[in-house]
């Protein structure tokens, strides 16, 4: 039997990789994909603990997180398209309209 700690460490690795992607990449699409990685890491945690307690509730939270990810991706990509039509760029540090 695989100890639950191994699942938690895989989840931790994916989470940290996602955080590094969000903090260092300049391309907004890759930043959104890193956010998907972070949400995915959380899903592994929830399903692992659902197995650990033999309780299906964690898997239902996973379903809600996937729903959220779909909503977030739709709105986020809509913003990216709208921004690209205005400014012709997808780089995060060129998005400085609110900065002066």
């Amino acid at each position, binding site marked *: 039997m695989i100890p639950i700690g191994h699942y938690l460490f895989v989840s931790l690795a994916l989470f940290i990789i996602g955080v590094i992607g969000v903090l260092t990449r300049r391309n907004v699409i890759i930043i959104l994909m890193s956010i998907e*990685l972070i949400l995915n890491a959380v899903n592994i945690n929830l399903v692992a603990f659902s197995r650990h307690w033999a309780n299906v509730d964690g898997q239902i939270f996973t379903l809600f997180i996937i729903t959220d990810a779909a909503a977030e991706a739709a709105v986020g990509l809509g913003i990216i398209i709208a921004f690209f039509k205005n400014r012709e760029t997808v780089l995060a540090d060129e998005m400085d309209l609110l900065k002066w």
Partner: protein
Amino acid sequence: MTPTQISQIAFYFFAGLAVLGAILTVTVRNVVHSAIFLITSLLATAGIFLTLGAQFVFAVQIILYVGGIMVLFIFVIMLVNLDVALHQLQFNRQGWVAGLLALVLASQLGFAIWFARGEGSLDIPAGRTGALSPQNVEQFGLALFEKYALPFEIASVLLLVALIGAVVMTKKRV
């Protein structure tokens, strides 16, 4: 090989694949390649769900994440002209701060997981193993439509709001 060994091998294979795909997702230069590696990572995560006996989440992960969200990503990558961005600097100048922050976060969480091992706290209790798996979809459906019926309806409202938001956002004139 016993089924336990097969499940262990499957877990470590999928875990390695997921981490490898994630690393390539955030380091590779081309955005389309990045999306393909993210799909690899998500499929490997679906495999991890399967080794945990969560068949329904496994199916939802493949259908919704890989079939829905990633196709949306690839559509947008093709709608947005990325040729200019491809030849510019891919990482911003705060790399070392981000690395330091990630290192601190990783050591903190890793210490927490390491500290909580043993003495039953994080080991799977005896007699509970695999009790979930055979009727997974049945249990899932019962819990979703009885205990979590209200959050389920709220999630559908959320999806409607996101739908309207995405349409309004991409309209020519708001």
